[in-house]
């Protein structure tokens, strides 16, 4: 799949997302439920703002000395007999995984959830290696998507949010011979049994990495299901894919961030399983005899040394998706990237460029909910403005076309010049008064005191497509005129 989940335009994806009412209701329900759980978890901890400062300081420090920590980590992995491959891009990462899988002549591969593996498009490559490749996504949501013919994820923490229990029952019945009902408990048991059989035969385990522990060469994995733990115990070969920024100095910093992650992502104190593991120890009988870590850049370094560097602080908690009022309405697929929502709108252009992802920074009212909730204090809404600035001012990529750009520039001139603004004030009433009006004004109060416009042209068409536009008062009744008289009267 890679970074992109669709070849359609933003407008086309938006149209499609409007059709799936279940998915939309699911997102709203998820946001509401998560709001309560997340806020409660944070309140119970107390001093949340201070914890955010701590988490931010850890992430910023690590990014500042990223080369040092990557060096320390890779040295420690190698010292224990493990193999580290630094991949500049998706192709290099993909080729390395292919190399190892072919070397092992492995056919049975289990994967536990990792966005990076999707980003570098591992699955189609693995499937193509032989006819009898047996690839299993073991995270329940990813498993559901895989069984549903490799459907795309719509959320970074709850990838199958857009699927309801009936759809899942149908998929399981068709593909797995499931004969039970749509009760999630029974669906989950079916998944567990199916996957357990495949786990026990697995030869290679591919995982992501919540945080690489620099001073030990271990990997920290945080899950509720336990699939990552089976993946690092049973297969003899383990391949870890990690974004280069997913690293901490020691287990102490990982522990702090795991706490922030669990409370922010799912409103839990910790996820059920928080694991620190690496190469099999000399006296262990299970665990990977052969341990590989692929450290991936794939565009992340584009952010370094720029205003966007802060986006690399992200710990993939998904809280920003869960508070975003735009994501709430349009869902994950509309973003066209495996990283949707606010974090995705900042990250996707950094990784994948403006040609493909330039729409995303504009799909926001800049309400700031994302910035407010981010546990590592990334100022997401400000970075969206920064993307817009780069596109408008630096690259001259005018988002809505030249005419809207002309109108925006006119607004810019009009609001900086008292003379022009004065003219606008004089003309506002006349200009609006001639447009098609609403026959009846039902909303009382000063907003529609002078009438309501039903249809307006140009930039204002977007307004009247959705709602009525107030008509401005005649010049002599405007505020500044009143104020002059008011002061004179005194």
């Amino acid at each position, binding site marked *: 799949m890679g970074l992109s989940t669709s070849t359609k335009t933003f407008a086309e994806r938006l149209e499609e997302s409007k059709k799936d009412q279940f998915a939309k209701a699911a997102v709203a329900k998820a946001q509401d439920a998560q709001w309560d759980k997340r806020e409660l978890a944070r309140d119970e901890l107390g001093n949340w703002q201070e914890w955010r400062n701590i988490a931010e300081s850890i992430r910023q420090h690590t990014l500042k000395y990223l080369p040092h920590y990557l060096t320390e980590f890779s040295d420690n992995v190698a010292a224990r007999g493990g193999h580290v491959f630094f991949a500049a891009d998706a192709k290099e990462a993909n080729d390395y995984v292919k190399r190892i899988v072919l070397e092992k002549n492995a056919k049975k591969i289990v994967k536990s959830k990792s966005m990076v593996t999707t980003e570098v498009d591992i699955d189609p490559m693995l499937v193509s290696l032989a006819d009898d490749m047996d690839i299993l996504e073991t995270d329940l949501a990813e498993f559901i998507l895989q069984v549903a013919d490799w459907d795309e994820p719509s959320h970074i923490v709850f990838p199958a949010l857009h699927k309801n229990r009936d759809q899942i029952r149908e998929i399981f019945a068709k593909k797995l011979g499931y004969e039970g009902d749509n009760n999630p408990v029974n669906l989950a048991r079916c998944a567990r049994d199916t996957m357990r059989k495949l786990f026990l035969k697995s030869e290679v385990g591919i995982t992501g990495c919540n945080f690489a522990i620099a001073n030990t060469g271990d990997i920290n994995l945080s899950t509720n299901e336990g699939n990552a733990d089976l993946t690092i115990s049973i297969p003899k070969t383990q391949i870890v894919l990690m974004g280069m920024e997913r690293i901490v100095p020691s287990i102490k910093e990982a522990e702090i961030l795991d706490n922030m992650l669990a409370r922010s992502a799912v409103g839990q104190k910790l996820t059920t399983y928080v694991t620190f593991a690496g190469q099999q120890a000399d006296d262990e009988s299970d665990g990977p005899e052969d341990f590989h870590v692929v450290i991936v850049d794939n565009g992340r370094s584009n952010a370094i040394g720029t205003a966007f560097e802060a986006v690399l602080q992200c710990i993939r908690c998904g809280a920003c998706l869960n*508070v975003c009022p735009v994501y709430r*309405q349009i869902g994950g697929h509309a973003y066209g990237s495996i990283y949707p929502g606010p974090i995705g709108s900042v990250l996707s252009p950094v990784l994948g460029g403006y040609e493909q992802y330039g729409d995303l920074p504009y799909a926001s009212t*800049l309400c700031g909910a994302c910035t407010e909730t981010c546990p590592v204090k990334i100022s997401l809404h400000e970075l969206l403005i920064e993307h817009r600035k780069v596109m408008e*001012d630096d690259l001259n990529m005018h988002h809505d076309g030249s005419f809207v750009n002309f109108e925006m520039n006119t607004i810019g001139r009009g*609001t900086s010049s008292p003379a022009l603004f004065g003219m606008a004030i004089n003309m506002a009433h006349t200009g609006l008064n001639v447009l098609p009006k609403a026959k009846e004004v*039902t909303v009382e*109060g000063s907003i529609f005191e002078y009438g309501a416009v039903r249809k307006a042209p140009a930039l204002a068409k977007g*307004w009247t497509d959705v709602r009525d536009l107030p008509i401005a008062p005649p010049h002599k009744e405007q505020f*500044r005129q009143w104020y002059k008289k008011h002061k004179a009267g005194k």
Partner: protein
Amino acid sequence: MKVSIFSTCVMDLMFPQVGIAMVEVLERLGIETDLPEGQICCGQPTYNSGLVKESMPTIKNQIDAFESSDYVVGIAGSCSGMFTEYPHMFDEGDPYKQKAIDLANKSYEFTQFLYRVLGLEDLGATFKGEKATYHRSCHMTRILGEREAPFILLDKVKGLEVLPLPHLENCCGFGGTFSVKSPEISEMMVTEKTNDILSTGAEILISADLGCLMNIAGKLNREGKKIRVMHIAEILNTNVDLERIDTVKNPEFIRA
């Protein structure tokens, strides 16, 4: 005490009644107001669209307009919030940086000023038992950082039952130019917001941000809904009972 009125481009163009209400409330407290003529707009519409270079003349003009003010009190939370962003827009060494800092330090949104600077809670406003609900401005809450003042002041309005709004934390879909450039998404957001408002059974919708009010009221009117929409300044200026106005904590001025 002298206060400069920050009228905002939207109020100047469209809603004089709101500005009048704010001036009347302030002057009733014995405050002297002025209206610096040079002011136009805080620059949000163009700045937030990414036209940062193009916004600088607008922003500098705004800073210049209030240079000699003691206090700057604004009618819109998002516009006053924008002033707090001004200092980041100038580099060290640029003379405007300090001017921007000075402006941010003396600038307040209306309810913020009443509560935080004057220490007032009861402005004497009186209603007849109507039900109302309050929509919170995202920028006022998150960028300006004023979460409490509007609620505290509304609580002391006599005869007004303020009902909680479901999904208070969700944006109404205005977002400045977003409302015209992304009408499809804006429509979805404002539809949910109007449904939430109507679900409370409120007869009056209140907000401290004119952008939000234009957006929501525009949708309510399009749907033919009967409801009254008022800016919080208008609420606080309704049927004022002077006896109830708290003694002002700032001893600098006398009650009218």
